[in-house]
């Protein structure tokens, strides 16, 4: 029976962490934030390749928007310099605004796509923008029980 998790809290409490996959940064275009869209083999049995690629491509687009050097960023930079950077005390930078959008997007993706498949994406900003961490959960009740009993005996033998 396929495990179905209707919300993220349920996922975290009733499932156990089996593995973590790390999507690394793609530096082929320089130091701008971009993640590799290569589909990791550990997720092959869990989700469709297209959904995964869509998520990563959307995230990459968000980051490109945050780091875009154009009219608005110049205006922000010049205004900040003119006010001796005091304006950042009351105003949020464009990057921060985009990061909030990203956090909302990841939350939404987790709820709609990843949690129902027993997966969870961690926002890259919590990992220093180095990796997209995808946690793979096993259902504690059914398939994980055989490995569960061996670890129980292992730890009580301490």
């Amino acid at each position, binding site marked *: 029976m396929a495990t179905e998790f209707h919300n993220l809290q349920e996922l975290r409490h009733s499932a156990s962490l089996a593995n*973590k996959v790390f999507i690394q940064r793609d530096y082929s275009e320089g130091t701008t934030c971009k993640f590799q869209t290569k589909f990791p083999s550990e997720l092959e049995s869990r989700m469709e390749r297209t959904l995964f690629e869509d998520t990563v491509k959307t995230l990459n687009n968000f980051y490109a928007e945050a780091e875009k050097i154009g009219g608005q960023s110049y205006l922000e930079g010049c205004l900040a*310099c003119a006010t001796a950077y005091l304006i950042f005390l009351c105003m949020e930078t*464009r990057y921060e605004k985009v990061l909030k959008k990203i956090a909302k997007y990841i939350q939404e993706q987790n709820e709609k796509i990843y949690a129902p498949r027993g997966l969870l994406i961690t926002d890259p*900003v919590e990992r220093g923008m*180095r990796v997209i961490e995808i946690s793979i959960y096993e259902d504690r009740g059914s398939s994980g029980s055989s490995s569960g009993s061996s*670890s129980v005996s292992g730890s009580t033998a301490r």
Partner: protein
Amino acid sequence: MHLGESMRECEYSQISTRSSTPMETPYKKRTPKRRKWEAFPGRNKFYCDGRIMMAKQTGVFYLTLVLILVTCGLFFVFDCPFLALQLTPIIPVVGGALFLFVLGTLLRTSFSDPGVLPRATPDEAADLERQIDVANGSTGYRPPPRTKEVVINGQTVKLKYCFTCKIFRPPRASHCSLCDNCVERFDHHCPWVGNCVGRRNYRFFYMFILSLSFLTIFIFAFVITHIILLSHQSGFLNALKYSPASVLEVVVCFFSVWSIVGLSGFHTYLIGSNQTTNEDIKGSWSSKRGKDNYNPYSYGNMFTNCCAALCGPLPPSLIDRRGFVESDAPQLAQPTNGMTMYGATQSQQSHMAATTPLPSS
């Protein structure tokens, strides 16, 4: 669950026999939550509950501050009244504005996070180790230095593995040995501002040295003017006796102007060619290394490079100094234990790995 309960009982008895370290305190009942800066692994100093971040050695920074404050103070007290009356009151106004700008940018450079990369979580580090072992093959010999090659805009760049932070450093990042952190777009560690200069505070640093050059030249010029005007009235030696502070200011400005203006010029060149001090010193992109060696990060023209460095977007700090330490993050098994732990926390892992087996209660 039975397993969870027995583990929790062991937890409390373990804590009572060991002296508490920062890693273990979060697991006690009702411990006040610690902020992340208190558990920061680098060698930085934090003030104002994590809002201010500086390097460990700040002596030279205080010297910089004292020099600027004393020289400007003397200028405003001893030279400005005369100049405002004799010439124009705009002089102290411009001087004041420059002084405030210099101070603002200095403090901003010194107190902000230069772009420190947080260290890898244990899971990330384990995953990387596994990948490196797979790539090298288990030979039993000492593993070769860990590097990864990336092609950026047609140029091959080597990414080095940082053994302290357990990450592959992004391009242009470097590990500062004084602060013990990897810093993004690492320029240099400046003892005069008491901090590293990196991606997040480079523009403040540049504005600081540029405005300081203007301020130094400004003070130098007007103090000389003051002395000359006084000399017309009462002779040169009397002028010096009447305003001894001016002599001190001239000396300080004369010796600083060469280094500061020189540094401003150097950094203007670096910004124009989109290089860091680190890259320039190593000659990473110089044509002497090879005919096809060029800077892959440069935008082609000086103007775009300047705009990108000074007016580009300012990324937020990645280390979240004022956030609270989370003690319940789920973690995977440590390879040393050889068994799967369900919902084990970081502090539990370090307990299990480090302590000798306790007698069962």
